[in-house]
């Protein structure tokens, strides 16, 4: 859906009353500017769109009105909102306030609305959002979201909605409060005087009696009058036309359309009829379908004659026909040339395919019943469509195939499986995968490799959903084998599939803590950048940021920085992958001994986690919170966080690479809190695997240090220092050497202490890992080191400075996101709290029972730590879970 843009022509057209056939209708214009919400509700051809366009042009609102025309059959909330945001950004106020948003798989319309409310809160001048053809919006979700926007938007955002039938948008409430202006069919009907004006402007001279006949027959219906004007312009005997017209009982539209068509040249008639199979047409397509040349010129002429042809882009190269017009044309085409229709669709399909319009290409191929072509096109473009968030469109396209075709074609069956998966039908997804496997053998040679990759990717996605780790590992291996096979890569289209495969593989390996993960993420991300797929690149970087932490903090910081930048420029700052980038950044800062900076990022990570997230994701976020609290010396809070992480670890299906670390930090926190007994218990209770690791060794060392047994410390540290007990991260090694230095010093071995300390500094320097020095303060040792032979004098000075000013920092002053993350349903209820809807009304909006809403409210209040609706809203706003309140109200 491209937002329609008011062309210069419109502005020129509307310059004078009746200029170019557009009649000035001042009383209606008044009404358009009056209420906060204006609805134009009238059937096809009543003149809504023309009125709106001339209103915008005549009142000079072009820069302050965002125009969206809902495409025929639009079912995807994401597409709708992308168009709305795009249109808003083209206005003057919108360009400053509204953030960019690029399509991505699975964007949440509700979150988009919330962000839009946040962006527009400071709006202090009128901004209009015009939505034409609202009845075409076939998504109840999108309508509810629009309704929410209507309820919570700032006063300065005015809505103008044009529709062919009344749509449920809670308008009765607005009506009661006097905020709604309505313009209905009776209002839009032309008066006799206006009809006279319109005809006159079209150059038609008609005596009063004839005009009266015409007016009576059309009953002031705008489309009828315009069609009549078209027929009458230059007509040899207008009086007779009027008489015949008024005498017929055929419906106005059919009669007049037939008249109009008859009066066109053969060339124009042919063009109109044969291009009616398209939703949008340009000069090239017109020539292709109608045969011949000069199509673009003809389209321009038709548009200037105000003949129901409307440009859909600013350059006026693409046009669409008025809905009423095109439906009638299609009927006429089928009646008069039915044998040619299939070929028209075929030609259009090929053109669209070649010029980069995959969705239209598939639709046209389906209309031609060329299932093979349609299937190939859809399969080739699926990765791109998926990444563009067009899952709903893909679903609609799949539904356009006969069930038998879908089941017998390997690629279509695989795509259907992915579609079923996206809709939560795991069993159906597996069934279709089975069908795809069965049909795989019959895929022709040149597509075989690509089909196998597609199948493998979808199998992997299904296995991940199942949550069976061994199955996932198996599928990942299969995918790797297939993706690296020589015939898997064909230049062009399948690059997207390959990038998608690599990143999916990398993410799976990341969760399983397999070493190949970072490499595949890197490869996938690089390929994604090369082919211009920012969402994949962003995912690769975000996961890669955490994945890089064991090796190199600076690489982790770099990746996370890049991921966050991509997220910010594309508006993906609430999407799950970015949570990892935030978490990685928080972790790096915490390990570098910069807790105040880490806090903000940790909060953002916590906000981006939903209750439905994988437990592994939540574990990572809790762990990071623990690290941040450790680095501020707040050991009780650190303990809470690590305990939460450990509880989550119990729910994991596969071992998580952070688990041994979390245990060790937990022990450490207990020791620092003085509870050495419990610390000992925890250590004793560790699994053998965890106990053999270096992190446990360091934790044991800390315990012995607290018990003033330096010899035991060195014994515990030995395997860590010689590398036989592995650690997940270099910072653990740094800490081990620091503790070793302290112990050796206590054992009166200054030489060994100095060597150990120097080792610690060596390891810490490249990534600035200062936390271990701050957590285990040894200022005397450090000063001695500085006086002696060291390569790190500057570093030591910095550490000493930090130690000098370092005391356990006070708890973070501001409000924090809820410790327990909110679920999707709770967040949805939360968003309705700033409106005046009661609980039963909210329940109606969300199609759930009132008791469900009340349960969500209770949980919400609990998680936010509040006792009333008003407090909930306030707290939610304070932690950025809700958009701030607008200027007024």
């Amino acid at each position, binding site marked *: 859906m491209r937002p329609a843009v008011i062309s210069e022509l419109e502005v020129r057209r509307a310059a004078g009353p009746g200029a170019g056939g557009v009649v000035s209708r001042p009383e209606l214009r008044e009404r358009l500017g009056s209420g906060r919400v204006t609805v134009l509700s009238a059937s*096809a051809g009543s003149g809504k769109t023309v009125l709106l366009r001339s209103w915008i042009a005549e009142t000079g609102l072009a820069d302050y009105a965002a125009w969206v025309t809902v495409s025929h059959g639009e079912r995807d909330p994401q597409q709708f909102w992308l168009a709305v945001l795009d249109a808003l950004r083209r206005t003057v106020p919108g360009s400053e306030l509204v953030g960019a948003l690029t399509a991505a798989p699975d964007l949440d319309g509700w979150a988009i609305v919330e962000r839009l409310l946040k962006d527009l809160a400071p709006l202090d001048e009128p901004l209009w959002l015009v939505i034409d053809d609202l009845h075409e919006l076939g998504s109840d979700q999108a309508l509810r979201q629009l309704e929410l926007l209507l309820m919570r938007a700032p006063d300065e955002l005015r809505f103008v909605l044009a529709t062919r039938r009344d749509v449920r948008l809670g308008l009765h409430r607005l009506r009661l409060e006097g905020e709604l202006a309505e313009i209905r069919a009776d209002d839009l009907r032309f008066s006799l005087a206006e009809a006279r004006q319109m005809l006159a402007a079209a150059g038609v001279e008609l005596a009063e009696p004839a005009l009266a006949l015409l007016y009576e027959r059309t009953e002031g219906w705008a489309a009828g009058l315009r069609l009549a004007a078209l027929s009458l312009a230059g007509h040899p005997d207008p009086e007779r036309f009027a008489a015949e017209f008024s005498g017929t*009982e055929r*419906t106005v539209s*059919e009669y007049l359309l*037939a008249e109009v068509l008859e009066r066109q040249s053969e060339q124009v008639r042919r063009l109109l009829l044969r291009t009616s199979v398209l939703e949008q047409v340009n000069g090239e397509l017109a020539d292709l379908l109608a045969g011949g040349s000069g199509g673009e010129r003809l389209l321009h002429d038709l548009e200037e004659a105000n003949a129901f042809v409307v440009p859909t882009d600013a350059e006026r190269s693409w046009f669409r026909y008025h809905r009423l017009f095109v*439906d009638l044309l299609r*009927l006429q085409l089928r*009646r008069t040339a039915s044998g040619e229709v299939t070929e028209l669709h075929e030609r259009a399909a090929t053109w669209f395919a070649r010029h980069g319009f995959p969705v239209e290409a598939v639709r046209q191929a389906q209309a031609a019943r060329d299932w093979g072509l349609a299937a190939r096109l859809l399969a080739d473009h699926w990765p791109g469509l998926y990444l563009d968030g067009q899952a709903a469109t893909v679903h609609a396209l799949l539904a356009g195939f006969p069930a038998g075709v879908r089941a017998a074609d390997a690629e279509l069956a695989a795509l259907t499986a992915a579609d079923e998966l996206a809709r939560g039908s795991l069993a159906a997804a597996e069934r279709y995968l089975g069908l795809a496997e069965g049909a795989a053998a019959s895929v022709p040679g040149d597509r075989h490799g690509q089909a196998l990759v597609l199948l493998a990717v979808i199998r992997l996605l299904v296995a991940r959903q199942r949550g069976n780790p061994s199955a996932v590992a198996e599928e990942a291996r299969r995918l790797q084998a297939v993706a690296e096979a020589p015939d898997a890569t064909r230049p062009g289209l399948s690059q997207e599939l390959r990038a998608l495969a690599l990143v999916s593989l990398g993410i799976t390996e990341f969760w399983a803590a397999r070493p190949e993960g970072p490499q595949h993420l890197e490869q996938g991300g690089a390929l994604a950048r090369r082919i211009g797929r920012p969402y994949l690149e962003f995912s690769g970087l975000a996961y890669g940021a955490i994945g890089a932490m064991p090796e190199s903090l600076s690489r982790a910081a770099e990746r996370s920085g890049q991921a966050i930048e991509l997220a910010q420029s594309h508006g993906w700052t609430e999407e799950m992958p970015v949570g990892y980038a935030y978490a990685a950044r928080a972790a790096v800062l915490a390990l570098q001994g910069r807790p105040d900076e880490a806090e903000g990022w940790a909060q953002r990570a916590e906000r981006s986690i939903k209750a439905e997230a994988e437990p592994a994701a939540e574990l990572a976020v809790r762990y990071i919170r623990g690290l941040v609290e450790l680095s501020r010396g707040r050991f009780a809070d650190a303990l809470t966080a690590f305990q939460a992480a450990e509880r989550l670890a119990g729910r994991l299906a596969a071992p998580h690479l952070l688990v041994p670390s979390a245990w060790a930090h937990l022990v450490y926190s207990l020791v620092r809190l003085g509870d050495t007994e419990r610390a000992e218990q925890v250590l004793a209770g560790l699994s053998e695997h965890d106990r053999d690791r270096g992190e446990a060794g360091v934790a044991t060392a800390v315990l012995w240090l607290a018990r003033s047994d330096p010899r035991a410390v060195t014994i515990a540290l030995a395997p860590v220092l010689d590398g036989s007990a592995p650690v997940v991260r270099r910072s653990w090694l740094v800490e081990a050497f620091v503790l070793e230095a302290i112990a050796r010093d206590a054992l009166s071995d200054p030489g060994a202490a100095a060597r150990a300390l120097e080792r610690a500094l060596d390891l810490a320097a490249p990534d600035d890992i200062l936390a271990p020095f701050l957590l285990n303060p040894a200022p005397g040792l450090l000063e001695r080191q500085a006086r002696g032979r060291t390569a790190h004098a500057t570093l030591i000075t910095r550490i000493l400075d930090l130690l000098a000013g370092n005391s356990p920092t006070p708890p973070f002053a501001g409000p924090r996101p809820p410790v327990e993350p909110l679920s999707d349903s709770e967040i949805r209820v939360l968003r309705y709290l700033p409106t005046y809807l009661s609980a039963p009304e909210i329940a109606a909006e969300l199609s759930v029972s009132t008791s469900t809403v009340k349960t969500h409210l209770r949980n919400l209040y609990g998680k936010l730590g509040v006792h009333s609706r008003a407090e909930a809203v306030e707290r939610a706003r304070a932690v950025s879970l809700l958009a701030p309140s607008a200027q007024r109200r």
Partner: protein
Amino acid sequence: MRQYEIWVRGHLGEMMRSAFPTLRAQPRGDDTVLTGALPDQAALHGVLAEIEALGLELLELRRVPPR
């Protein structure tokens, strides 16, 4: 299958009739009645949607009891 009668304003010419291939269009005074059997609600709403799309004025809808 159910039998329906749907009244719209005006007479339908060839073009309009071809939009309702499963129904019979008969003029009744100034109006037209479309009669025919429709398998289910979905089909019925499809016909209504077509009527709306073509800008026809819907007057009356009746389900005819089986004889």
